[in-house]
């Protein structure tokens, strides 16, 4: 479904991605794990068209997308939940959600989708008139996910959904991701919490300093000695 071929990217002199190649299969959860600064978020920003790539290619369903603008990429069905949630703090919960459906011209359908996610996340319905910035971290993460889903994506990019959340809330978020997957959505998940990510994912890539150093089925990565030592705190 999504394919990155030796993608390079720079921030000025800094060579952030050094030839990342990966692919995401339709209907799967694929995860990228790695330490802080390894290039995971940069990879997602390149896919979303926010960050320019220096060389290589990104294809979505056989179509080259790295030359497209961010809004066109969203139009193709790739929506990102950015790191740190990035809720619009001075928009209400409902306005935040409506922004997720910005490209959908069919108002009736938008409200239908809105009701659907209010059912899935009742807390958002309770707080729909509240400013996004007043929500707690976990609620903001739910809002960020629901906002992205409002755009009816086919590929969801999730950047560190567990960041800064209490363990119980993390579990809740992971269950939501599982539920989304069961509805047939393809997910590319970036996580520092390797344990939680690999338990959820079908396939995984390990990224270190801008390169893919390891890739395998998620279940196998969980058993991999190197992964255990570096990312799971075992061994």
């Amino acid at each position, binding site marked *: 479904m999504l394919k990155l071929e030796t993608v390079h990217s720079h921030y000025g002199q800094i060579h952030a991605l050094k030839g990342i190649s990966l692919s995401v299969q339709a209907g799967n959860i694929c995860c990228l794990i790695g330490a802080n600064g390894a290039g995971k978020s940069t990879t997602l920003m390149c896919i979303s068209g*926010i960050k320019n790539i220096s060389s290589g290619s990104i294809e979505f369903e056989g179509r080259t997308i790295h030359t497209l*603008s*961010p*809004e066109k990429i969203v139009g193709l069905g790739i*929506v990102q939940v950015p790191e740190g949630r990035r809720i619009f703090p*001075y928009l209400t919960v409902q*306005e935040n959600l409506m*922004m997720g459906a910005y490209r959908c011209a069919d108002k009736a359908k938008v409200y239908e989708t809105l009701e659907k996610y209010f059912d899935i996340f009742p807390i958002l319905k309770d707080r729909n008139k509240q400013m996004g910035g007043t929500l707690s971290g976990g609620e903001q993460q739910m809002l960020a996910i629901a906002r992205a889903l409002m755009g009816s994506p086919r590929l969801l990019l999730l950047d560190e959904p567990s960041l*800064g959340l209490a363990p119980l809330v993390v579990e809740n978020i992971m269950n939501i991701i599982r539920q989304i997957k069961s509805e047939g959505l393809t997910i590319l998940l970036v996580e520092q919490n390797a344990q939680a990510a690999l338990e959820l994912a079908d396939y995984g890539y390990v990224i270190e300093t801008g390169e893919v150093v390891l890739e395998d089925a998620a279940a196998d990565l969980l058993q991999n000695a190197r992964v255990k030592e570096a990312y799971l705190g075992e061994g």
Partner: protein
Amino acid sequence: MENLLGMSSLFLQQLVNGLTLGGVYALIAVGYTMVYGVIELINFAHGEIYMLGAFLAYTMVTVFGIPFFAAIPLTIMICACFGILLDFIAYRPLRRAPRLAALITAIGMSIFLQNLALLIWGGQIRSYPRAVLPKAFFQNAFVVGDITMTWLQIFILAVTVVFMFILHLIIHRTQVGTAMRAISQDKVTSALMGISVNRVISFTFAIGSAMGAMAGILVGLYYNAIFPYMGYNAGIKAFAAAVLGGIGSVPGAMLGGGVLGIAEVFGAGYLASEYRDGISYAVMILVILFKPSGLIGKPILEKV
């Protein structure tokens, strides 16, 4: 007692004049504050759009014989397009450049447009010929004691209120308005939601320029003076009003315009008319000293 009444009626008269002037400042100020909100740029050429608004309407009524009330919407539309063009030519190529580059370009555009107007319309002060304006503009709408208010003042106040109300509806009730607010809070996330950031920025310029053009026509009417440099002083004042209210905040610009207009008229009335500009800037300096984010501006939000 007589004296007291005289004083209070002077006070009310000044208040009426101050509100009229403040409304016009507010109309210009929202243009600064909206553009600042979406691209963090002080669009110093905004005052020139206001000047062009006054001149375009002038040319329409004098050269082309278009009725005054038809010239207003035409001028507004042309200036809205002009605002989009200004952004497209001058600012969009510099979107990723350091902010100083765009700021200097804005000052350059301001000087360029002033001189362009000088070239087209010449340096002499012009005014809308009285013959094309409704006679009622110059008649008193009402006289209560010593307080008088002309129909022109009422027209200016009414237009200001209506425009502000429309603006409020656009910003809070439409999707593109919500997108404007979203972009002012987080551009990257807005793009990630599929918002065409550049298109919303164009829309912002269009709205700001439309309000500015309307203000230009109103001031041209009120002071009977249209000239190429009229945008400079009004622009600086409106910018001061925007800062006073809290740059980036639309209600702030409205409030700031009102406060500045009233302060200026009262200063001119009770102290000396030479001080009018000085007083409005003094008010701005005081606010910046004691409340840097403006009267109702939002303090910079700590990103978590």
